[in-house]
């Protein structure tokens, strides 16, 4: 496997005056309570993970869980108090100011919850801003920005000011701006949280469409578990600065690591999250009917087909090899009975 794009090794972020000495004294055993008594607040507590190329990691947590702080450590908007962060093998915390600016100008893009558009610039000027900062001349940067305007579907509004746009449109500008320099790594800090539910859904679909096309390495912050499930390749659930569990959506739903995670998963409709392969029986490949379903289908999409069968259904992989089977009872159990089993 190639080198991970983002790699964190026990990252700590502690706010407070003598945070560093306290962290040293704690010797890797940071307890939020004792720190708080000494006037320090723990933002991120021993975060270690990797994000590989083209992967979307969604960091989920309620407000104050440290998810935004973690993101700001990795984008180095704040300096981590301890630990190591590597961006494509480069040690982020050892970069000097110039190298950091270079990295941001070419490799990173970020979208913000409150859009953070420049109020004095029009849509196209806002999008062209990172390019102009890089030193690209006005004509070229505006042309490039116009491509981005089209990409996010804002053509015809390029000369509007942010204040003249709706929330969803403003965030489209924010997304276009973050993509203008064609970054490899894309940070999104609760990009859709300030939007209405309908617009939010629309933007999520739009976002998935974009990602399919662009295949960026993404860190996506949200406090909405459904959003995380919908978008993520992997989800990291944070609480009080600690990553409680980092896994695929299916695994988080099926095997919640802690009580806290389990509470989140309780209300989740399984059929929307789990894939066929998550519930199939890979040993029994006999006595099966004619219907075949792909192993990486979401259950909801094929449930009806399977339930109309009397027999067990074959599960195949992309090369049309049978890898397991699934019978309708299993589907019914998953959809209706799962919750009882857990209780």
């Amino acid at each position, binding site marked *: 496997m190639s080198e991970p794009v983002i790699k964190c090794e026990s990252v700590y972020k502690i706010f407070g005056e003598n945070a560093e000495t306290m962290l040293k004294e704690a010797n890797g055993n940071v307890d939020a309570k004792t720190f708080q008594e000494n006037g320090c607040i723990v933002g991120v507590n021993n975060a270690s993970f990797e994000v590989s190329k083209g992967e979307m990691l969604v960091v989920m947590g309620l407000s104050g869980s440290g998810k935004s702080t973690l993101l*700001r450590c990795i*984008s180095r*908007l704040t300096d981590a108090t301890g630990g190591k962060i590597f961006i494509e093998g480069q040690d982020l915390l050892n970069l000097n*100011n110039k190298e950091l*600016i*270079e990295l*941001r*100008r*070419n490799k*990173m*893009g*970020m979208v*913000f*919850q*409150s*859009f*953070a*558009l*420049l*109020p*004095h*610039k*029009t849509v*196209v000027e806002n999008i062209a*801003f*990172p390019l102009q*900062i*890089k030193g690209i001349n*006005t004509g070229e940067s*505006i042309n490039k920005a116009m491509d981005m305007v089209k990409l996010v579907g804002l053509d015809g509004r390029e*000369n509007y000011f942010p204040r003249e746009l709706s929330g969803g449109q403003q965030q489209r500008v*924010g997304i276009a*701006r*973050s993509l203008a*320099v064609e970054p490899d790594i894309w*940070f999104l800090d609760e990009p859709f949280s300030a939007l209405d539910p309908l617009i939010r859904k629309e933007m999520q679909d739009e976002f998935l469409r974009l990602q399919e096309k662009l295949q960026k390495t993404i860190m996506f912050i949200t406090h909405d578990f459904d959003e995380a499930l919908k978008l993520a390749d992997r989800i990291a659930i944070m609480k009080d600065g600690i990553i409680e569990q980092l896994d695929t959506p299916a695994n988080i739903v099926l095997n919640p690591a802690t009580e806290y995670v389990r509470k989140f998963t309780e209300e989740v409709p399984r059929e929307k999250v789990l894939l066929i392969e998550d519930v199939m029986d890979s040993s029994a490949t006999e006595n099966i009917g004619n219907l075949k379903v792909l192993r990486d289908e979401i259950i909801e999409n094929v449930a009806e087909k399977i339930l109309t069968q009397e027999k067990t259904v074959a599960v195949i992989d992309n090369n049309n090899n049978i890898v397991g089977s699934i019978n309708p009872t299993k589907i019914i159990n998953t959809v209706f009975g799962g919750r009882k089993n857990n209780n």
Partner: protein
Amino acid sequence: MEILKKYPKLFQWLFLLIVFFALCFAIDVPETYKFIRGQAEFVKDPNQSTFVFLGKEVRYYAFDVFWRLPPLLGWLPIWINDSLFFLMNDWMPMEFWNEDTQEYKTRPLVLQITRNLTAFMTFLIELIREILLGGLETIVAFTSWDWIDANPWAELPGLPWTIVAAGSAILAYKLGGRGLAIFAGLAMTYISIFGQWKPSMQTLSFILVAAPLSFIFGLSLGIAAFKSKRVEKALYPILLVMQTMPQYAVLVPALVLFGVGDHAAVIITMIVAVPPMILLTLLGLRAVPPEVIEAGRMSGCNNWQLMFKVLIPTARRDILIGVNQVIMVCFSMAVISAFIGAKGLGFNLLLALNQLNIGLALEAGLCISLIAILLDKMSLAWANKQVDYFGNLNFFQRNKNSLFFGLIMIVGIALAYFGSIYFKDGYNYLFEVPHNKGISTADFWNKGVDWIFDTFFVYIKAFNTWLIVEVLQPMRALYLRMPAIATIVLVVGAGYLIGGTRSALVVCGLTLFIALSPWWDRALVTTYMATFGVIVSCIIGFTVGTLCFQNKHSTKFMLNVCDIFQTFPSFVYLIPVMMLFGITDTSVLIAVIVYATIPATRYTIEGLRSVPSGLHDAATMSGVTKFQRLFKIEFPLAFPHMMLGLNQTIVFALFMVIIGAFIGTEDLGQYILKALSDKKGAGIGLTLGICVAFIGLIFDNLIRTWVDKRKKHLGID
């Protein structure tokens, strides 16, 4: 007793008032006490006491300490003065190379620095002035007088007024469209036709140097304060004092440091105009949302780009208000600095006021106001301008304004040349209309004033007498009757009740400084005039503001009126009142009232506007009447903001009271004016200025603390 339990604060305030009045009645006026009218009166009086501190002898009339505190700070002005002179004349003498005489000369360091600064300012002013009016000085600065004598052709010719007028119209068109262009053209033509061209251009050249310099300094210091806590802490007290310091008072020490003339005026203007610019820059930069800053960082901005491409443009609104303030201060200083020999409209205005030629004063004042409004609108339009990237323009379209200006240049010069042939009597009206050859309406106004005086003399006089005898004199007497100790108890007590120990200590310090200076009586008179002005202003302002708020159009109209009135230099307000009421306290007070009503009205409207619309709806749904809504919902919520308006009203009133000394009042301002013509006045002027500033700061501290608490209580930001 129920009431007292319900409102414990009320009881405390009552107690404070009882103590205050008890002290007032307990302490009798000493028999020897009288209001000291002139400084000369107590130069050599055998009844005086003396003390010596730091080698300075202070003489004063001793009273019971409860009645008036001894002027223990009396040495301060003398000490400041001596230090200034020492700094200028004896401190750190050094050898400096003199270009003119080609030899080294020994000069004190500070003197050399101020002289160089002055020379630089003079050069800048002369440069712009000579582009507009013509002259030699700029060329001399690069060559020498000998060279000029050898080359008599070398002279900046100056621009004909037609070109300047058309040029400003084109610039206005480019910045703000047709309306502004028409206004610019008309204003300039008016100035020219009415023979005010030369002084106006002198004033303009002064402004064009002072305003940009103040802007640059204010902005950079604001940025520095934003970046470093230490700089901010160092600047903060200065900013605070400068905000309430009367502009007059700065003139005096600057006179010592920089001498007399336009250059000194520019430097003083900067001293006065920079603090509000710093404050507003800081305010604006602070208000930039953190996510916008992060967005800038993530776009790869370096520190420089972050500041100038993200922070400052985002904070533009506040910085623009700062620019507006700078322009306003520049114009009001353009008049005031005429006291120290700045040329231009201000000088004419002052001269006319001195001669009681109201007509001339009115004309000069009108010109100043016209230029002020024009520059104000142009700077606003400039800041709001947008770039069109997609217009596919050819060469002519892109450069039409420059081309048009070139054309105007040629036409203007041709006209001026034609004029020089046509007008045989020596005045080329197409080049410049001389001061006394323009149309003058002065006679008309003077006759108008005379007519008003003749017709309404009886009524005006009756009103005047009534006001002075029945209202002002008793009020003044009451203020002077307060024993010092009672005043201090009242002020400190109020500070304690409003803001706790901290507030009490601050207020106590400020009051003690004034009480220990030799001018307590004068400070009381200043306060009485300001109080009277503020009370009337607030009544008018709050009423007008509330009434105007009832209708959208009248709200907008009133805010515009406030904007325009605020652009007038403060001195201009003295003209109409002197027209009507002559040289009396009434005139000053009416000027104070008119001037101070502006912030009172504006803040009332803004306060009422800031009441959230959700509350309006909620109130309406509870079935309130218009009056109930006003008194139960809008006033309580708008009150903190209105109190900030009161704060501004007090500052405005104090300014005007001090300026009113020009007409003749017996307050601190009178002494400041005296200090201006006194060779050793620098220390006195500065200390007096600080006293006035402290009066303002006492109220400022009390009101601000109260407002902050109240806002927190109401949960509004």
